[in-house]
């Protein structure tokens, strides 16, 4: 019997009213469909991860691709772990040209860019796991997690800009252009 598609536990609202669906969609604006439509949103197959790597390489450059590879394979890592994994990362496509591990400043810069583009989730947790909200409060470790759905959406940016231009003219296209600037970190 084909298994019933249960609503994934990540979404909160039940499938019933559309308002709830919208709120839950707002919950994870770039990920799940609360109707449980496709579990492939939460589970990421190897092919999907390879595709994400490729897109990051295209859009952000080889250093970002290196970092993204580690994050995609390892999930949520802290900064120290990230450096450690980068040091021992096996050669991938991205590292063909850049052989050395990128310096720490470059890693931080790349992480900043990825966060700015909403590709990277970041959270600062203190010792017992609660979120540190205040920027200036010292201590706690910062954890990074990549958001594969946000990367896959980037492939559609061309379509979005075309739509925007069709609806609102050149100005909007330029403003959309600038809200996703391309930064290449080499």
């Amino acid at each position, binding site marked *: 019997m084909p298994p019933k598609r249960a609503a994934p536990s990540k979404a909160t609202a039940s499938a019933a009213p559309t308002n709830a669906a919208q709120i839950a969609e707002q*919950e994870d604006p770039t990920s799940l469909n609360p109707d449980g439509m496709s579990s492939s949103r939460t589970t990421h197959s190897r092919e999907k991860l390879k595709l994400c790597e*490729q897109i990051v390489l295209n859009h952000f450059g080889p250093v970002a691709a290196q970092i993204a590879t580690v994050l995609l394979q390892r999930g949520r890592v802290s900064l120290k772990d990230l450096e450690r994994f980068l040091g021992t990362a096996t050669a991938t496509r991205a590292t063909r040209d850049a052989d050395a591990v990128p310096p720490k400043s470059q890693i931080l810069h790349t992480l900043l860019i990825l966060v700015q583009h909403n590709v990277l989730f970041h959270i600062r947790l203190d010792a017992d796991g609660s*979120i540190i909200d205040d920027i200036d409060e010292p201590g706690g470790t910062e954890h990074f997690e990549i958001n594969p759905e946000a990367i896959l959406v980037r492939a559609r940016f061309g379509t979005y800009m075309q739509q925007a231009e069709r609806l609102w003219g050149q100005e*909007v296209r330029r403003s959309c252009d600038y809200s996703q600037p391309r930064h290449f970190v080499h």
Partner: protein
Amino acid sequence: MQVSDLLAQMPSTSTSTRPLITHLLLSAYLMPSTLLSHISPRDVRIAYTNEERKKFKGIPGPKDLKTFEEAVKDRIARERAETRGEGYRQRDERDVGQAICGGGSGTANGKSKSTKKRKLAVDDGDEDDDNDSKRNRKKAGASSNASTPRATASWMKSLSESQKTRLDSVIVTDATYLRLNFDRFDVHIRDEVLYNLMSSIFNPTTAALYIKIVEAADARRSDEAQGAWPSVADRQSDLVSLTLLSSSLPSSMQLNKGFDKTMFMTLSTNNKPVTYDFVAEYVALLSRAEDITARSGAMNPGAGGEAALATSAIRYLIPGTTNTDVTTPTGSRVSSSCSVDFAAAGRKLKWNLLKQTVEGVFGETEARVLGVLRREGKLEEQHVSKLALLSLSDTREACERLFAASIIALQEIPKSSMRDPNRTFFLYYLDYPKALAWLSDRFHRAHARVAQRRDAERERYRTLLNKAQRTDVKTDGVDKVLSRVEVQRLKDCTDRLRLLTVAEARVERQSWVLSRMPM
């Protein structure tokens, strides 16, 4: 990205830029981005659950855990709803320089920008009024002339009245951080995809009317409540009244083209069909009004295990439950309002994709076997061969190949308590979610490979492409600066790149349909 930074980085802004950004914000194309949106949803849930647990004294039992979950859900939903309504404030005399949709003029005034804040972590976007008091820099030269800025941009003309009044009264705050709302843009992709589907099933005129109904429902949704927007996740749209629709259709739309010429010939000349009749006729067609079994409501199954219930009789429009029924010129009765069923169209699209891919990858035999299994459920090999009108050996081969690719699955039913393979029924069935997962994986792989190939091509021709980007080549033209061989190579290269880009876009669109359209 912050609004003030956005305005600073754009090459040219006009008086209608801010209202444009406000309009985008209000109609959910842009969303305010807060600290919460930069934290993974899983982490948020875990952290909030931990907080709830700390508040609780003692060891929580299963019921308590459930209450924690509910509390966390509500909290997250509330916070999201709050951020939705932020990012803009009421217009006041500071914003007089901005273009206004409706009336109103005023004396010019300089605009001001709030201080830029750049930090490693993104700020909270909801410090509207605080930042207004922190203005310490007036935007130089921003004062417009004394002439009234009633210049309306072209996009403003298509706004509805309520949207215009809303836009007149609020404007975006400079300090807000914005992000694109991809779901809202996806709605346009969805409309395009639906148009193509309807065009292929029926004809372009029907498709055009269908899209008009979809757009009407979307417009109604975005007009209605603040915070509601038409989303791709909607399984069914809002109700659209046919009377309102037929009066708002453009006169250039020739609805009679979609029907055969002889269809309305039997009517007397007094009863010549008008737009409303045509619309009703199309709606009757799309909602299968003549199909008696449709009325029982068993036509459009919901999500879940009823994928096997698929028949070719799908209703693309669902009639509303108003009491006023309308009779079309050809005699069918149709409700005077209808809603669009996106889930039905989504199901059909996904099935079409699966079938086409299986046919392309494996062959026609396998596609037939797949179709049979989908319709019938769990079958033995002999039954499949009978229903698919194939020989047993062909069926066996096809089933094996599909099983090896894990598109179909096997169910063993032993006849006795000893699990003897000779005395077991082996039933094949289509595991639909698994099949779609296989398909989606395939698309991702194709996408990655095409992108890789494109990179490789670009790398191969890198020097030539760089040369073509030189200013002298651009100004004088390719033919003048490059040699004949180079021109030919460049043309080959650009053709190949274009083909690859098109292929990538096509694969991307297919994987979008698979992952985003509702089931």
